[in-house]
């Protein structure tokens, strides 16, 4: 056997790699719990088939900033040292980022619930500072490792869009307070939503799946050429659509941008197929299987939406349509994908923390013993059905059904979490 010289491995980084990601993950859990309670007892959020009230916007930001973004940051702190095989550039900067971003996010939420632009501006500055520190820390870690891959390119891209999302939100707050550039307010709002929903989440999910899916499928020898094209086309679609928001180049340009978006999604799905062709495990885990189904459903949803917009351009002005597709995208695809991955990440992190140092010395449980993935699958399926019901009732303007499905969605999230939290009973 030809064995090339490797590295003699010494220091255990298990514990130091645990606390920072876990601080973000626990904070995100608390946010999701508060969000769920808010869905259950906070009254109807979708009156008039929109979510444009200050309270509604606050609730959406609680989900995006408090839960999804905070969780994603924790996952990046866990993933980047693993992918680069290098310690984080600075744990201290990570802690500073945690306090700045968490304080900023809480401030933004208070600002929304009270609708106070100055609180939103001040808090956004804290959040932006946190994101900049985070970006620098991750970039310096990647530079230290000298290991720039598609996964890391996607991760950095997603955080650039996150930064632009917070900056455009900050500019909107400035606009509200001082009326500096009123003509661009709608363009800023559209950019804020587009970068936040798509740039930030999609790049992150795509980048994570480049690493995680082959691991969960135990796939080897699959081609990776497509990865860079997926990211390039996705960037192109984001740029084309954003330029159109500001320059109003017309319907054709918008449809071209959406077409590019669909091509990027198609290439991404084809790449997953390439991974699946080289898989060695039949079952990557039920939660992960569901994220692949969710992607198929998402692509179908994009095809139908683009088709509907093509034949009926007035839907671009329909708030009930735009709110419904936002709900389907955010709580449906993004939510289900994050929660699906979480069903793997949480047991793994907890296992590493509790049992990592006991491996080889005593019997330790496997990840499959710590979480029942069949239960995860069904609970996420219930959750998905509630999201579809909620979006449908928003589109067809059925406020009572929207309220009932909103409450049920809150219950579904808690129902799902009850099972995830069982992981922590192992020690």
């Amino acid at each position, binding site marked *: 056997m030809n064995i090339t010289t490797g590295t003699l491995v010494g220091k255990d980084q298990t514990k130091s790699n645990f606390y920072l990601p876990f601080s973000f993950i626990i904070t995100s859990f608390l946010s999701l719990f508060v969000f769920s309670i808010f869905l259950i007892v906070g009254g109807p959020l979708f009156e008039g088939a929109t979510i444009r009230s200050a309270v509604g916007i606050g609730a959406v930001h609680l989900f995006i900033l408090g839960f999804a973004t905070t969780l994603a940051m924790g996952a990046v702190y866990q993933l980047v040292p693993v992918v680069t095989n290098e310690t984080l550039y600075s744990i201290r900067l990570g802690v500073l980022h945690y306090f700045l971003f968490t304080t900023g996010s809480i401030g933004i939420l208070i600002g929304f619930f009270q609708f106070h632009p100055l609180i939103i501006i001040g808090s956004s500055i804290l959040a932006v500072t946190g994101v900049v520190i985070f970006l620098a820390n991750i970039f310096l870690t990647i530079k230290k490792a000298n290991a720039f891959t598609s996964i890391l390119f996607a991760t950095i891209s997603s955080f650039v869009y996150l930064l632009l999302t917070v900056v455009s939100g900050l500019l909107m707050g400035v606009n509200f307070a001082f009326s500096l550039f009123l003509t661009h307010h709608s363009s800023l709002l559209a950019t804020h939503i587009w970068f936040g929903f798509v740039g930030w989440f999609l790049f992150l999910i795509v980048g994570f799946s480049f690493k995680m899916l082959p691991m969960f499928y135990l796939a*080897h020898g699959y081609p990776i050429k497509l990865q860079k094209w997926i990211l390039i086309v996705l960037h192109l679609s984001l740029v084309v659509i954003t330029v159109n928001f500001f320059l109003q180049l017309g319907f054709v340009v918008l449809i071209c941008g959406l077409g590019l978006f669909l091509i990027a999604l198609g290439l991404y799905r084809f790449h997953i197929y390439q991974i699946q062709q080289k898989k060695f495990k039949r079952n990557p885990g039920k939660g992960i299987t569901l994220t692949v189904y969710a992607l198929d459903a998402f692509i179908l949803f994009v095809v139908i939406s683009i088709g509907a917009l093509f034949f009926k351009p007035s839907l671009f002005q329909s708030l009930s349509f735009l709110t419904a597709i936002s709900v389907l995208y955010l709580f449906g695809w993004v939510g289900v994908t994050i929660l699906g991955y979480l069903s793997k990440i949480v047991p793994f992190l907890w296992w590493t923390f509790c049992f990592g140092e006991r491996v080889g010395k005593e019997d330790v449980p496997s990840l499959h013993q710590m979480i029942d993935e069949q239960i995860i699958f069904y609970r996420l399926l219930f959750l998905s059905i509630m999201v579809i019901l909620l979006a449908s009732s928003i589109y067809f303007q059925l406020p009572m059904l929207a309220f009932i499905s909103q409450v049920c969605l809150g219950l579904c999230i808690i129902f799902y979490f009850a099972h995830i939290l069982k992981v922590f009973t192992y020690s």
Partner: protein
Amino acid sequence: MDYLVTKEEVTKALRKVIDPELGVDVVGLGLIYEVTIQNEGLVLITMTLTTPGCPLHDTLVNGVKSAVQSLPTVEKVDVNLVWEPEWSPEKMSPEIRKLFF
């Protein structure tokens, strides 16, 4: 010290190190490329992981060290982590491979 540890004893100890995601030990997975017994209780393990940047990098390497270190006649364990030849599912033992397909 009365006798040097044998390869069989080291391999038996290594079978206690389980990949928690796959539920299979590192020997059955084909992650252990070579076990070298050197004099004075020094054991050198050459191993790989299923993929570079495996999240279980530290855990499995330290598990291997702990398992072998627990043998009474072993004084020191060094783990040499290599990426060539690259691991592939074909490196699993046939009986373990059957569990996957």
